[in-house]
């Protein structure tokens, strides 16, 4: 640990001691969360690794971690958004100077976004976006349909991937926008899931408008901008995933054995084998994540992180199957009167969210075999032809 880290740590600690009231969980100067975030931004803690000209302090990696840790210790929000704030990071990396000045503070201050990427015709093939953004003077006019958007109702802005050039190949005709979500041309409809939940939405854009200044990156750079945004997202998920997964393992280990006890099947040797295998898959994944973190901490890149989502599919489907067996006939029931059944039914259906959502198991296997194992990439029949000519458009 270097001196500069110690120095920063002391500075943050002192600053927090002065401004943050750990007992009330609020800033000492009365005010809203937004006011507190303004404080944090002004002090340079919101994005410590960014240059001073851009709300930061030009700190290194370790110093930034120290800042984040001090904030975390006292439960104060707002620090280290240079690591996890997706829109702010996208704008910082790709946005125009004007866009940076205008919008980054908004996002550092907590403006919410939803992701307008997927479409009915662009699921696994995310680049097959058909939502169009046509330039009309200072604005783009956007028409199309997005799906699997979560948090659309709470969002201030949408991160929008739309097609601005129909003659370029699939990946090259896309642009990335930050579009205000509350406007006449945007309609949000919940999607009914097979679980009974409605966590996601369809978003219909019908001549919605977004200022040309809200384009992030150049026209045609949209794919690259989105990939970067996705990478930030994966990083956040990856960092949190280990703990969350271990946490849920603990819960589940208890519950499989508990359910077996409840249903008086704990002594069934056949079911014990299946309980063991289900718990093992979960624990092996947790051990993989721990090891991958150790390896990454030692500086060697670890391929294991990319396995977690695929492994989790097997775990979740497997758990649900074993629980169903344990419940037996009672698994046919549902609703509040039958909480165990309702739980396992939900798990059975919801496991598909992991095995399909955010890249199906099949797409994950492609990614692992290509990026980790170096096997040849899938050929894409329409990768190089004008999008206008592709089957996505012509059918």
């Amino acid at each position, binding site marked *: 640990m270097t001196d500069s880290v110690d120095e920063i740590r002391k500075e943050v600690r002192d600053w927090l001691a002065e401004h943050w009231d750990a007992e009330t969980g609020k800033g000492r100067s009365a005010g809203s969360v937004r006011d507190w975030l303004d404080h944090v931004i002004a002090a340079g803690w919101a994005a410590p690794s960014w240059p001073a000209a851009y709300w930061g302090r030009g700190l290194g990696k370790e110093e930034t971690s120290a800042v984040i840790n001090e904030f975390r210790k006292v439960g104060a929000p707002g620090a280290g958004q240079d690591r996890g704030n997706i829109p702010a990071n996208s704008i910082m990396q790709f946005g125009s100077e004007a866009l940076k000045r205008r919008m980054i503070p908004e996002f550092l201050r907590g403006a919410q976004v939803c992701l307008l990427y997927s479409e009915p015709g662009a699921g696994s093939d995310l680049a097959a976006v058909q939502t169009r953004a046509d330039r009309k003077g200072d604005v783009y006019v956007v028409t199309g349909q997005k799906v699997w958007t979560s948090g659309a109702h709470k969002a201030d802005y949408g991160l929008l991937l739309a097609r601005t050039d129909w003659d370029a190949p699939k990946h090259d005709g896309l642009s990335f926008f930050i579009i205000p979500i509350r406007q006449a041309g945007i309609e949000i409809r919940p999607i009914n899931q097979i679980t009974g939940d409605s966590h996601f939405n369809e978003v219909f854009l019908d001549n919605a408008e977004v200022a040309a200044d809200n384009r992030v990156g150049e026209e045609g750079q949209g794919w690259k901008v989105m990939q970067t945004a996705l990478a930030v997202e994966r990083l956040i998920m990856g960092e949190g995933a280990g703990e969350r997964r271990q946490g849920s393992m603990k819960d589940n280990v208890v519950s499989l054995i508990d359910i077996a006890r409840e249903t008086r099947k704990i002594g069934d040797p056949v079911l014990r084998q299946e309980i063991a295998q289900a718990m093992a898959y979960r624990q092996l994944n947790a051990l993989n994540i721990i090891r991958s973190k150790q390896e990454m901490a030692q500086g060697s890149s670890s391929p294991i992180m990319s396995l977690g989502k695929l492994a989790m599919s097997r775990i979740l489907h497997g758990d649900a199957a074993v629980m169903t*067996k344990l419940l037996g006939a009672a698994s046919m029931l549902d609703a509040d009167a039958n909480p165990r059944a309702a739980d396992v039914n939900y798990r059975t259906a919801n496991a598909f969210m992991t095995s399909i959502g955010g890249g199906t198991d099949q797409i994950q296997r492609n990614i692992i075999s290509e990026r980790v194992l170096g096997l040849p990439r899938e050929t894409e029949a329409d990768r190089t032809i004008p999008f206008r000519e592709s089957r996505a458009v012509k059918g």
Partner: protein
Amino acid sequence: MTMIEAEELGAIRAGFARLLSEKCSEAEVRRVMATESGHDPSLWKAIAEMGITALLVPEEHGGIGAGPVEMESVMEEAGAALLAGPLISSAVLATGLLSASSDADVKERILPAIASGETIASVALTGDEGLWTPEGVEVTAARQGNGWSLNGIASFVLSANVADLLLVVARTSEGVGCFEVAPGVKGVQLQPLETWDRTLRFSRIAFNGAEGRAIGGIDEQVVEHALDLARVALAGEQAGASRRIFDITIDYLKTRVQFGRPIGGFQALKHMAADLLIEVESATSAARAAAQALASNAPDKDVLINLAAFACADAFGQVAATAIQMHGGIAFTWEHPAHLYLRRARADAQLFGQSDMYRERYVAAMEKAA
């Protein structure tokens, strides 16, 4: 039991399929699912008019006098369409029990009405554990005056919420027997259960000194025979449902385009499809072989019925789940039919017994043969 000619059976099945495609579309299934009873009386009437409810009823009681082969065959269509309602309950399980009884009066009185669809009968034969075995019977019957008095719990009683008549399997001092009980009489408290698959309805019934009329000549063996009939019918349902959701999936693979081509061109999906086809064909073969063995009372009847019971349940479960995976996001929506098949597959996998139990019985039957 007469075996219907293949041609005649083909015609009945085709007519039933036509009826279902008209009156039991996905939209209709969803509509009925959402009703309180989960039963469509007008569809039931049409099914009965086609003779489907009469298939297993002997000719002398106004039925067609066909057997498991014919029932299995039409159940493939019922499964494909996810038919809701009391078909298995009344036309298979209750009919099987009554036909095998020695009680002329009961047969005379009830079977013609079951055959015509006028009477819907439901069979109560397992307790809260849902075992569908003799040990699982939790209702007891004791003589009281000229009749019998029933006490205890029966649960997972299929379609009891729409039944005109309950057949209650109960323990007596002389072994297992079966009793005719009117749903409305004193001492019968029927509680409909919430189900995950809303096309199937169960009730939990508390008997509290309820009056029952003993049905002559029903013992454990007769109950097991009726359950075997139901298992074969269910196997047919599972085979037919597997094939339908598989076909839906293959069609989708041919039309859904991603990465510039139909996703059915991707090897991963092609191989999943090939593996599922084995399951679908195996389920069909198993269900039909079990039906034939039961119809002819073949020496390997137990082997084949137990095989069909777990093979068809497992196949349907695997096909329905994999179908969702192969569809991707669209099948994660309520509006897509795939989850309806998954729900039915999970429920069917519990009805009348679980796969592990059937595997155990299958080995035992094989051991006897070996």
